[in-house]
């Protein structure tokens, strides 16, 4: 997400809005946004509504009873169609922002 913020101007120029989603509360997200200066929407999904729709629920990931989203990135065009996605196999590794921006620029 820091990679996205560092490149926020490029996303704005491509008219692509980054949206981050996790199970964290709006309070935690507010602190996070303030601490790192995130200017894109950070949404709170404590009941796993969107996370379940995208089949990204990581059951009992932290400890029993606490399920979170597994990392996943989706580039969606204005018709609501997925144009690119990245489901990392190791949560220490994420997509390169430069690659994502190239894909974002190609959207019509």
């Amino acid at each position, binding site marked *: 997400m820091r990679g996205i913020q560092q490149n926020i101007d490029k996303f704005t120029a491509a008219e692509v809005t980054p949206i981050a*989603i996790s199970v964290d509360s709006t309070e935690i997200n507010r602190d996070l946004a303030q601490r790192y200066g995130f200017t894109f929407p950070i949404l709170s999904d404590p009941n796993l509504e969107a996370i379940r729709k995208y089949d990204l629920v990581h059951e009992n990931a932290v400890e029993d009873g606490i399920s979170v989203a597994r990392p996943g990135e989706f580039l969606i065009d204005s018709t609501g169609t997925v144009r690119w*996605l990245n489901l990392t196999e190791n949560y*220490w590794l994420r997509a390169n922002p430069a690659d994502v921006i190239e894909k974002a620029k190609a959207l019509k």
Partner: protein
Amino acid sequence: MKNNGFNWQIVLGFLLSLFAFASVPMVFSQWSVSTDYRWLSVGLFGIAAIFLVVGLRRAFAAGRGKISKITAAILTLLSGAVFGLFVFLAFFMSTWLPKSTGAPQVGQKAPDFTLADTSGKQVSLSETLSKQKGVLLVFYRGYW
């Protein structure tokens, strides 16, 4: 060659192991993680191992006391344990992720949703898309 005095190699090897262990989370939390920094840590462990070997040879050379040998052995074992834990976390535990075979694929419709942003305002995917060329959705584990 005189072989007494502080066995700094063994201590440095141990400290380097701890640093190598801490380096990935440090990098992970400070910078974007598009580069595979795990190998940087593996390299640091490699350097630590060189110092540990030199330190061990020194500790077990003639003229060193029992305490020196025991300390060196313990620090080396601890370093090995730290390396083992690192390999487990970085290469095994972090891959225990659901397959997510039901995730929308390229060309498929992305499910719509409405969720609260940091100010409590409801944000929906469809509404955001109506004003933009696209949206980059980033699901992340969170900080709880």
